[in-house]
């Protein structure tokens, strides 16, 4: 497979070859001549295409690095508890079974194990991410992990970095703790007061807006990076630009992240639906342009990136320690992946706090993403990499997630090529977006099968 893709934009085409490190905006005749040359093994008829042809004809593509041998975690994940003090109407992360906090000794044993791994492979940075539930519902665990990591990294001349995904629903004192000790804080804030309180009510009171804003201000005024994460539904999709501008003016975030809400029985009960993928894409790009005035990037989880095998922790050898002492490569509840006949467990902590990693499972998970058949014909396969390996259905047609990912990724490629004016034209034309989003195969090698040229 040559992994060269063709993407129709207006009357021309983006020739996109991520593994060759090439993007070119060309006309359809150039594409046909290049394809003929590649198929026949002869030089293209047109001299101007020679340099492009020689790069694309190179069979030695640069696939992303495949981890082999013993486990090499990109970071250590800690889930202090699955409990959350918020009661977001779209959340499908709710804890199953009794509320449980991770054993502090388990957590610090994982820190010691991970730090020694980093040291043994001559790494410099120790990255620890907290997930939930709401991690700050178990502040003793968070505190112990942070201080233990600081103590052991200091003794080994390593740099600790802490990141937390949080709802900001705690006292000013704890927000200041994050500001003082964390490298980055991913804070959920869904927009103005009426939206935030509708999307994200608390369990014991309605108002989550006040604390979220207070925490955002504390983090925004600290040395920690503030990543504001907004869940997008039909309710706020049309004000993404306003939200982006408000965030930039009020909180000075390092980054803004817009992600689409997943529909659940609970959201349907509340008459809350996800946005149309075309509307989301165009509003996302408008918001990105708005925030660019403030030099604040607006990102999307499956957006354009360096070629990669996975856009989430799975298959990055990440070890996530859970409240029940299991070590997983995914932060979702195991029941979620078991429903899809998957096993993303990589080990466990025994009674003596010893870390046991199952190398066979680690290799199985690595291979699972290397051989993912779903996305072979889609140009996003090397960046989105199929999105969530658990929740993205295995089917042969593009779903809403695919559609928005494809449009946003094309706009990102155009922006990188200094062709931002074309991305503005694309998102203003529904027909053009549909032609692009619904193209059955993006592969140059399937050119004769496509209808768009």
């Amino acid at each position, binding site marked *: 497979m040559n992994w060269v893709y063709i993407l129709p934009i207006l009357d021309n085409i983006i020739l996109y070859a991520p593994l060759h490190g090439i993007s070119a905006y060309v006309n359809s005749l150039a594409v046909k001549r290049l394809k003929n040359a590649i198929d026949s093994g002869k030089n293209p008829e047109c001299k101007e295409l020679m340099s492009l042809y020689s790069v694309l004809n190179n069979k030695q593509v640069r696939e992303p690095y495949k981890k082999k041998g013993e486990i090499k975690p990109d970071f250590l994940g800690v889930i202090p508890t699955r409990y959350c003090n918020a009661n977001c109407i779209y959340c499908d992360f709710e804890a199953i079974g009794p509320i449980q906090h991770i054993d*502090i*000794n388990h*957590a*610090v044993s994982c820190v010691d194990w991970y730090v020694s791994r980093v040291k043994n492979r001559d790494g410099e940075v120790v990255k620890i991410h907290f997930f939930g539930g709401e991690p700050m519902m178990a*502040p*003793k665990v968070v*505190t*112990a992990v942070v*201080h*233990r990591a*600081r*103590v052991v990294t200091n003794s080994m001349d390593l740099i600790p970095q802490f990141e937390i995904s949080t709802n900001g629903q705690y006292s000013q*004192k*704890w927000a200041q*703790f994050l500001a003082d000790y964390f490298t980055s804080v991913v804070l959920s804030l869904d927009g103005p007061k009426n939206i935030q309180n509708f999307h994200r009510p608390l369990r014991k009171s309605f108002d989550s807006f006040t604390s979220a804003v207070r925490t955002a201000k504390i983090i925004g005024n600290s040395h920690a990076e503030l990543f504001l994460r907004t869940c997008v539904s039909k309710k706020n999709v049309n004000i993404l630009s306003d939200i982006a501008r408000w965030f930039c003016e009020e909180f000075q975030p390092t980054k803004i992240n817009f992600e689409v809400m997943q529909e659940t029985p609970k959201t349907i009960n509340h008459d809350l639906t996800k946005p149309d993928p075309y509307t989301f894409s165009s509003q996302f790009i408008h918001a990105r342009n708005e925030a660019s005035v403030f030099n604040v990037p607006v990102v999307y989880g499956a957006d354009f990136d360096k070629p990669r095998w996975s856009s989430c922790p799975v298959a990055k050898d990440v070890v996530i320690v859970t409240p029940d002492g299991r070590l997983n490569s995914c932060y979702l509840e195991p029941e979620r992946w078991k429903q899809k006949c998957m096993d993303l467990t990589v080990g466990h902590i025994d009674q003596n706090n010893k870390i046991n990693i199952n190398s066979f499972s680690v290799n199985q998970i690595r291979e699972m993403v290397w051989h993912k058949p779903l996305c072979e014909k889609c140009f996003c396969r090397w960046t989105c990499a199929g999105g969530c390996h658990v929740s993205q259905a295995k089917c042969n047609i593009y779903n809403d997630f695919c559609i928005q990912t494809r449009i946003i990724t094309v706009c990102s490629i155009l922006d990188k090529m200094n062709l931002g004016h074309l991305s503005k034209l694309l998102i203003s034309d529904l027909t053009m977006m549909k032609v692009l989003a619904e193209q059955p195969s993006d592969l140059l090698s399937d050119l004769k099968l496509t209808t768009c040229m």
Partner: protein
Amino acid sequence: MNCHGIQINSEISWVIDNKRTIIVSSKKNVIIFSMDESIMWNLIQYFSKMDDIIEIAKAVFNINNFQAHQKIETTLNDWRKKGLIQ
């Protein structure tokens, strides 16, 4: 004894002598001789119960035996007289 201290709450006092930082619990009969002043100061800022502080400090410093100080009453009385703790 050249030391000074702060009463943090009804249970916990933070005392520094010329050699080391000491956290004293009047209820738990425990004194923590800290290895890292900044971490222990952080812990007493965020946690008001000695049990919590001990649990975290044990994990952070990998200490298994926090000794109950043999002369804690004498020590506490001495500090009370000096007005260091109540």
